[in-house]
């Protein structure tokens, strides 16, 4: 009996009424929402323009900051200078080092009798 009575009660007329009378936002609210949108856009653009600066800052931080960068620069300049105008002692040192390496190698091979002439 109750079920039959409920079926006659049409909820749809209430839903239709609700759709016909929606709550509309006022002009003030629309303006606030739009201003917020434009503000977020401006902040986004600002952040995007700061991105390359930030990347360099991150790189510098990874190196150890400005003092480390100064040390690295000095080492690089010194390297270039030595390449352009090597001091006399450098050639001698290099020769000594290379010769010494060869001696060690020949001693090593001799020790195992690899290059001894067959007699």
């Amino acid at each position, binding site marked *: 009996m109750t079920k039959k009575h409920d079926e006659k009660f049409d909820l749809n007329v209430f839903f239709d*009424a*609700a759709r016909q009378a929606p709550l509309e936002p006022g002009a003030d609210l629309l303006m606030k*929402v739009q201003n917020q949108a434009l503000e977020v856009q401006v902040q986004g653009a600002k952040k995007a323009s700061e991105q390359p600066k930030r990347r360099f800052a991150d790189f510098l931080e990874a190196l150890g900051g400005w003092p480390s960068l100064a040390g690295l620069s000095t080492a690089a300049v010194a390297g270039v200078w030595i390449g352009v105008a090597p001091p006399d002692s450098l050639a001698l040192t290099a020769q000594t080092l290379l010769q010494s390496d060869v001696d060690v190698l020949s001693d090593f091979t001799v020790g195992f009798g690899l290059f001894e002439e067959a007699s």
Partner: protein
Amino acid sequence: MPLDMSADTPDEALLILFANGDPTAARILTVRLTPRVMAHAFRLLGNRAEAEDVTQEAMLRLWRVASEWRQGEAKVTTWLYRVVANLCTDRIRRSGRTSPLEDAAEPIDEATSPADQMQTRARSDALQQALNQLPERQKQAVVLRHIEELGNPDIAEIMEISVEAVESLISRGKRALTAELKSRQQELGYSE
């Protein structure tokens, strides 16, 4: 972006344009989405001032999430309905109340007679009062199905539950609404 393209452009594409700094996309999305958000918030809260606050907050969250929006992941409206529901739930829980009905005083189609307008107003107000008595999840499901006219799969996605659970919530909600509206028919002065 030319304004005449706006009607055919999906919300998701507009949101990406917005994230790329297009001010026209911001205007179109504001005009298109704010009324839907506001109407939904009001149906869930039953209070205009609170619905306005929730609308502003939900739209602000949308603007902020725009730069991370991945196309094809979700519909903008689905995301918004979910955010609105969460914001409304937070407010209702914080205040621990069921909102009293407010006279929203919204314009109804002026082509209808004053008597019809009054009838529509009375029914809409009565429905809102009855909705305010429902548990939150039932209210949300009924509003999404019968006022926003979404399909059950969409509602299931918004509410993050199964379609069967949506059907059950709607069915229980409508039973409760029928009982409430019938019991107050005389008191509220509306007719079926």
